[in-house]
């Protein structure tokens, strides 16, 4: 084991010095029947062998760098600035624990504080936590906050919210007295306003929308928050954070909580994680926030200092009365997002959103010209949109895969009625040639 320091001699010496004859004396509390289990594992590999193995396994994958990918649906291919990668790789960030000792953790604490600050700017809300596991769990926690805050039993959720978010929420609430009700979307993909209004009754704790929704459409939420608030419920919004560089923020829509997935903010797709659950809310809900908060204060000399704060909400203080059970969060991912947003800066965040829109819009217009595919070019989108195919999507996928193109995500898996429809995503990573090549390939289908 290359990571151990004690040599056999040292072990012997140390055992002797503490007056123990054999190691087994130290584990005498372990019932003999339990000891020395037969474990079947391959032999230890040396580092060259590990590197070799990892490289070999890597070669068994076709990554989105090897192929031309239009996959989105909750995980997005974006450019990550090299500087952000270096910052996240800094050993003092990477190998530190939670900043429970603020004096020895000002680096992490200030970075979290800056992350929180950036997220409040981006969402237009007041208070951000230091991160949650991912978009799905963060949204589930938002649901719990609404249920507890309003002391009402029901959540109303748009069916156009990411299916995995909705599933996670259901898992979180199954077996509890809380209920989840859904309202659908129209043929065009926008949420069904009538159904939403009809279901908004006095039992509703909170209403959850996603914009851009799972089908890629930017929802028009005009008047929605007024209705929700008039009903005494909370409005919860989940959005691709990059889209907020172009489209109305949760704050502008009047949301009480913005909770969702921060992966587009400089995190690699990594087959699904680690990602970044963001959670931003209003001053009124501050003390209900799940997870850690970094705050600004003074040190004993009156100098600016940062520390974790409002810890009385948390499990390590409050145990079974804690608002959430979260302990380890996604700190390093929040740092990545913090570095990413800082590197983009005030102008860049708008530009990147615009470029995403531009790529998707261009591609959608091109696909509109194909005879075997149908898109609705009138609907506002961000970087993703729905394509209806006149032929079997499975066949199309097969054909395109053979050309190293990942055409998109089949919608039927999530909405059985949307047969042969698929989600196509185009971000700033796609050049005009890339997009044209895709269109060309589709045209051949």
């Amino acid at each position, binding site marked *: 084991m290359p*990571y151990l320091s004690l040599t056999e001699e040292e072990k012997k010496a140390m055992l002797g010095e503490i007056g123990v004859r054999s190691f087994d004396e130290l584990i005498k509390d372990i019932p003999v029947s339990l000891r020395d289990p037969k474990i079947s594992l391959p032999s230890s590999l040396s580092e060259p062998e590990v590197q070799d193995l990892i490289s070999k396994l890597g070669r068994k994958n076709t990554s989105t760098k090897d192929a031309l990918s239009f996959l989105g649906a909750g995980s997005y291919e974006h450019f990550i600035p090299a500087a952000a990668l270096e910052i996240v790789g800094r050993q003092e960030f990477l190998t530190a624990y939670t900043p429970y000792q603020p004096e020895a953790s000002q680096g992490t604490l200030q970075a979290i504080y800056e992350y929180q600050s950036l997220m409040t700017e981006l969402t237009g809300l*007041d208070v951000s936590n230091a991160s949650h*596991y991912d978009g799905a769990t963060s949204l589930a926690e938002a649901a719990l906050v609404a249920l507890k805050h309003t002391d009402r039993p029901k959540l109303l959720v748009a069916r156009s919210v990411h299916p995995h978010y909705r599933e996670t929420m259901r898992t979180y609430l199954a077996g509890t007295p809380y209920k989840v009700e859904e309202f659908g979307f129209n043929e065009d993909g926008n949420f069904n306003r009538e159904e939403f209004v009809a279901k908004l009754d006095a039992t509703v704790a909170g209403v959850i929308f996603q914009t851009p929704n799972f089908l890629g459409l930017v929802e028009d939420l005009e008047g929605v928050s007024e209705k929700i608030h008039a009903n005494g419920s909370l409005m919860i919004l989940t959005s691709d954070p990059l889209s907020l560089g172009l489209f109305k923020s949760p704050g502008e829509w009047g949301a009480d909580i913005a909770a969702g997935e921060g992966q587009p903010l400089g995190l690699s797709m990594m087959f699904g994680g680690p990602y970044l659950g963001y959670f931003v809310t209003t001053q009124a809900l501050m003390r209900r926030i799940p997870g850690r908060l*970094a705050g600004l204060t003074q040190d004993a000399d009156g100098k600016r200092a940062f520390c974790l704060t409002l810890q009385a909400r948390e*499990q390590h203080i409050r145990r079974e009365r804690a608002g959430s059970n979260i302990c380890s969060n996604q700190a390093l991912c929040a740092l990545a997002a913090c570095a990413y947003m800082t590197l983009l800066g005030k102008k860049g965040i708008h530009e990147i959103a615009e470029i995403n829109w531009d790529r998707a819009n261009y591609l959608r217009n091109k696909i509109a010209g194909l005879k075997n595919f149908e898109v609705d070019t009138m609907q506002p989108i961000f970087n993703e949109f729905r394509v209806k195919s006149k032929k079997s999507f499975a066949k199309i996928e097969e054909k395109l895969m053979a050309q190293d193109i990942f055409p998109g995500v089949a919608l039927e898996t999530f909405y059985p009625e949307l047969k042969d429809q698929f989600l196509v995503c185009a971000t700033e990573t796609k050049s005009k040639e890339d997009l044209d090549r895709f269109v060309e390939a589709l045209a051949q289908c």
Partner: protein
Amino acid sequence: MLISQDDRLSFEKSKPGRRAVSLPKDRFSGEDSLKNIPKGLLRQTSIGFPEMSEPDIVRHFINLSRKNFSVDTHFYPLGSCTMKYNPKVNEWAARQEKFSALHPLQVEATAQGMFQILWELEEGLKEISGMDRFTMQPAAGAHGELTGMMLVRAYHASRGGPTRTKVLVPDSSHGTNPASAALFGYHVVEIKSNSHGCVDMDDLKQHLDEHVACLMLTNPNTLGLFEKNILEITRLVHQCGGLLYYDGANLNPLLGIARPGDMGFDIIHINLHKTFSTPHGGGGPGSGPVGVKKHLIPFLPGPLVEQTKKGYAWASSSPQSIGRVKLFHGNVGVMVRAYAYLKTLGKEGLRKVSEAAILNANYMKEMLKDTFKVATDGPCMHEFVLSLKSFSAQGVHAGDVGKRLLDYGFHAPTVHFPLVVPEALMIEPTETEARETLDLFIQAMKDIALEIATDPEKVKNAPHTLPVRRPNDVLAARKPILSYRDQVREKALAAEKMLPTTDCRLQTSD
């Protein structure tokens, strides 16, 4: 002001017009197309991100990092956190584009290498823990616990019978245990520790009835003791129809030595970010795979990986599955690291790790026991707890000693936990530390004991040599300033009312 110690926020370093990352200038849709978006959908408010150049941003963050203690720079004997060395080859592995650029919804055939890692990692965890199947979805220990509670509920529900509403946890348990159970609607019942620091068997028996859904236990417990009655405990709980949940945060001393599965646990989570050496990243991400015995497999969140004739694939969900607990497949990046570690460990490495972890802890305990009171008798496992109650006379608390250790160049041990020990200082050296390091720490502790006797103020006001002194956390909680916006708001308000701001530094010299 030293640039290298310039602690202004990025926001305060901002200057209009500066840019860092540049973005493509070409637009494919034509300039005007943006105008087709309905005005009502467009953002109207500006986004107050800082404006800085790339060189200044890099310097900002690199210098921030230098204010941290970390495993790569300091000894970090934080009890219950297993701050072992995070091998660099694991980082290297996780950075490979062939993994990092995989989309979670890729067609299975295009990600066989990734699947193999998930599969083999699960196989390894099964062997090491003695469980029958794992879900890799949970993002951390607490998330695993929550998942565990869902499994408990689903299992009992599937079997009918009495409604089981109680979850038992020892009073020495980690806060996430009761919090996870309560979050999911269970009634949490604390079981007392006996005078030795283990589960009080009488108290346990008193609470055992047909309403017990589960007992949550970490073993070795948070005092560093192996629950020697473990087989009796699991037998009793099973007898009354309850399940046993193992909090795997303390698995590090058991590799190749004993398995939770063999002890009788039905459900277990493993903190890959502890025992499997993945870095803590300043608080996360972790990974908390949950393993179960056969009878609970049908309830696991889906999808699980399966081996088919065409290679690895996602198995279709069992109808009894509780459903997914996470957006996609879990914190895969952490799993790649853990996989590399598992391969390095191999069969031979397991026991070596745990033996060294146990030996290091016992060595420290013995060397410190003449100066400090150890909370438990006899040998410990991978960590131990001191009780510093005796220093209360000088007004010195465990936390003060932790702070003073910072001045000596050591991260503080865990303080004031477990709650059952007054003035607890919980020390976990891990197996990757050299004896010389332990000796230096032991000496520092002894020096501090002397300081307490001769100059207690020095200890009470520690640290003295770090970037900041003790932050006022009462002020922080009373007047929460949680973002730059809050700061600006507070400043404006203070200016108006002629009051001092919390953020004094802004008022003084920049």
